[in-house]
């Protein structure tokens, strides 16, 4: 939960691009389909190969198909939870641009998150990096913001519409500078 100051309004909530989630999801989909393909295309061979080895060790008191369906369903349950965890991490990593601050919220797993905020007038540099053709076509990239008095830059990799975010941050920075009269606007 982010607590806003008086007269503070949220202007934009920036999240990672969906392609980032899709890339992480691909592994889960493959892991979900792998047992199915093994059963359909190689089931007989695996049965013939492992049957004699397992027969002296394990005996089934019921229908083997029910046994396989049961464990496949539990495998999918486990994968579904991994996917939900990835989505949680993906969806709760946000940059919130308000009319006073830029707030970086980073989810670091369950019950563990880091929130950093800094005022627009402390921003010294905003950099956008769009790596490659896919990022250019789908409009995602990495935005980094360097502030006065801190050695490290705040970075948000894989953010959706980084140029739009940069424009907003720069315009809010310039607006904050105009209020405080000292100049050197960001470009």
């Amino acid at each position, binding site marked *: 939960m982010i607590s806003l100051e008086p007269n503070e309004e949220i202007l934009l909530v920036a999240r990672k691009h969906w392609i980032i989630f899709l890339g992480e999801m691909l592994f889960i989909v493959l892991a979900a389909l792998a047992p199915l393909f093994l059963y359909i295309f190689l089931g007989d061979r695996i049965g013939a190969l492992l049957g004699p080895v397992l027969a002296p*060790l394990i005996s089934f008191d019921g229908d083997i198909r029910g046994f396989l369906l049961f464990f496949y369903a539990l495998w999918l*349950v486990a994968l579904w*939870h991994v996917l939900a965890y990835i989505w949680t991490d993906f969806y709760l990593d946000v940059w919130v641009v308000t009319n006073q601050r830029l707030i970086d919220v980073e989810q670091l797993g369950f019950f563990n998150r880091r929130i950093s905020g800094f005022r627009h007038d402390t921003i010294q540099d905003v950099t956008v990096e769009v790596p490659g053709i896919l990022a250019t076509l789908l409009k995602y990239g990495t935005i980094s913001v360097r502030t006065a008095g801190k050695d490290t830059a705040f970075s948000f990799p894989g953010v959706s519409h980084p140029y739009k975010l940069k424009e907003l941050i720069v315009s809010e920075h310039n607006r904050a500078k105009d209020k405080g009269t000292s100049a050197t606007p960001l470009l």
Partner: protein
Amino acid sequence: MISGYMQQPFSLPFSALFPLAIHPVALWVIFGVALLGALIMTAVFFYHWRKYAVGSALVLSADAVHLVVLGILFSMAFIGVAEYSL
């Protein structure tokens, strides 16, 4: 000198255990534990999604999708263990 026992170390008593019969009750126990685990994880996910999702209308849909998918998967597991038990 190698004794007969050393030559066949697993002849007794381990051979009496095998083949290990997988009783349907074992699957019901695993089913119950998995269901309990899923319920706890669901509570953890819902807590995070509802509390921390800033300005999002997607969270309620995510809740619904999560519950529907879990329902389908546990129905599959139930069918599997029921088929095994028959």
